[in-house]
């Protein structure tokens, strides 16, 4: 018999920590599984290890995470770091491996708080060593105190690009250039939604402060760049791009890319949940109710894994999911749940108000959603955008069919890096919308697990 746990929360970022906090304070025994070795998710990564100097570099928003860690003191919480969850079934069985030992537990209620990943930014040469996500550089800074220094170019779009630039400068690093790819028309399309940002003025003031910091540091800032190409033989040596009609080439040893973040959907996809395409956010998101509950009984999603709203909104959504789980498990009355949920919902509405402006302002340029033919789209199986278009010309209708033609999405990352791009390319080539094209089917195990680990499981 598989052991039962009242509540399992997967992911110890802001959503998962807050779900666990609400549930445990209502008296629910909670198991919190997290893939990382320390709590906080990507946003509050290495919070416990960062000294005063680190806090000064990473800024005030980062230290906000400290209060979320209090739940770890709860006697009702069983927190297991380093847990790779490789299967979740609709019956709420959770299979995971910690330190080479696999096991399974069944949850009466399950909250998926698997967060976000950086939206892949495919263009020719983006697979060269030395080309990394801007978020990846932030991980290196938070976890290992590593500051990219000299020959560093940041390219792309979105708030995190500027935040990482600011943090590198705070840490004394040098930035050779910031190459912004935000399409020039975006600002005009976003401006009508600016008044709603007045409910969340801190986002605007922070953004403007970062731009001023980058200007003060005299970082060359190119705007409206297109036609990006990373050049180099065995590692990146330069970034080529075009401004207007003029071609530029900047030498670099580290090229940091960013064009927003997108939900991490491996578990919700593997569960077979319905997902809806968000044309503005250019992302899929699982269909959820106002508590984050999915269409499968007892399984909820909280935080950026249910659609990108940011760290503070994720915390609010985590609290709502935790309250609902406590209510469903009989630890809170409906009245108690609703009384606690009221202020949380109001705070969440403020966070939502910022999205229409931000999503329009930072909508990725078309060339990174539907990249040129020679771009490797599937990094694992090395399939180009041109090959995907070729499969469509042969009659291929959707991403799952492309696997039979050329194996995109079938390598170790299981389509995490190419999935949305393959669907976007097919949608344009066929002239249909994303909902009709669909997405890769994801099958367990969603993380590598060895046969020996499975064979040694005491519960099968």
């Amino acid at each position, binding site marked *: 018999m598989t052991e039962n746990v009242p509540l399992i929360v997967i992911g110890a970022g802001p959503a998962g920590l807050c779900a666990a906090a609400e549930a445990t304070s209502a008296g629910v025994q909670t198991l919190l599984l997290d893939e990382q070795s320390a709590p906080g998710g990507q946003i509050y990564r290495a919070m416990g290890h960062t000294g005063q100097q680190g806090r000064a570099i990473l800024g005030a928003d980062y230290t906000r995470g400290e209060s979320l860690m209090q739940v770890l003191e709860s006697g009702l919480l069983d927190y297991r770091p380093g847990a790779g969850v490789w299967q979740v079934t609709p019956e709420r069985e959770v299979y995971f491996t910690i330190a080479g030992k696999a096991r399974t537990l069944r949850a009466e209620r399950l909250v998926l708080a698997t967060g976000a990943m950086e939206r892949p930014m495919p263009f020719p040469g983006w697979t060269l060593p030395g080309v990394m996500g801007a978020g*990846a550089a932030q991980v290196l800074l938070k976890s290992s105190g590593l500051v990219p220094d000299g020959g560093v170019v940041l390219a792309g779009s979105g708030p995190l690009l500027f935040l990482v630039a600011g943090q590198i400068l705070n840490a004394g690093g040098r930035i050779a250039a910031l190459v912004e790819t935000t399409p020039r028309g975006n600002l005009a399309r976003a401006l009508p939604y600016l008044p709603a940002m007045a409910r969340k003025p801190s986002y605007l003031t922070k953004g403007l402060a970062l731009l001023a910091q980058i200007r003060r540091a005299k970082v060359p800032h190119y705007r409206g760049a297109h036609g990006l190409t990373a050049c180099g033989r065995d590692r990146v040596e330069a970034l080529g791009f075009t401004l207007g009609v003029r071609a530029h080439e900047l030498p670099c040893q580290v090229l940091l890319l960013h064009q927003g973040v997108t939900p991490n959907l491996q578990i919700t996809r593997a569960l077979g949940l319905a997902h809806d395409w968000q044309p503005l956010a250019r992302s899929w998101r699982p269909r959820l109710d106002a508590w984050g509950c999915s269409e499968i009984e007892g399984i909820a999603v909280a935080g950026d894994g249910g659609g990108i709203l940011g760290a503070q909104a994720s915390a609010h959504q985590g609290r709502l999911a935790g309250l609902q789980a406590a209510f469903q498990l009989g630890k809170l009355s409906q009245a108690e749940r609703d009384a606690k949920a009221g202020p949380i919902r109001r705070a969440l509405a403020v966070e939502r108000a910022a999205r229409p402006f931000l999503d329009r302002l930072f909508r990725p340029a078309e060339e990174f959603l539907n990249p040129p033919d020679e771009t490797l789209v599937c990094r694992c199986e090395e399939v180009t955008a041109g090959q995907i278009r070729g499969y469509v010309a042969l009659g291929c209708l959707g991403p799952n069919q492309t696997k039979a033609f050329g194996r995109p999405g079938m390598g170790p990352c299981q389509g995490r890096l190419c999935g949305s791009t393959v669907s976007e390319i097919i949608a344009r080539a066929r002239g249909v919308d994303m909902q009709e094209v669909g997405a890769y089917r994801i099958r367990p195990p969603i993380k590598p697990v060895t046969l020996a680990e499975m064979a040694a499981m005491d519960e099968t």
Partner: protein
Amino acid sequence: MPNASLFRRLPDPKRRTVAITFEDRTVQAREGDSVAAAMLAAGMVTARRTPVGGAHRGPYCMMGVCFDCLVEIDGTPNRQACMVEVREGMRVRPMTGAPGLGKAPAHD
């Protein structure tokens, strides 16, 4: 060629130094580093050669998503270098080309 000037370390006296080997080279990492961070700190950007085209690849996402930093750690192939913390004496080798049942081909 390794290039030591890619990343600079902020001092952290609380963390001990940990020695690992990458191929035949000894690398001084810091306690709490992932293997991928230790490699990058030492100026090494290539973790593997791809099975399909033999292209060089290195850490890209640093959070366990992209699987481009796959390395062999203490004899176990296909480990995500960004998800494994360094341990004293750890032996890391790049993954080269297509996996096989026999001895892995030598890395050139």
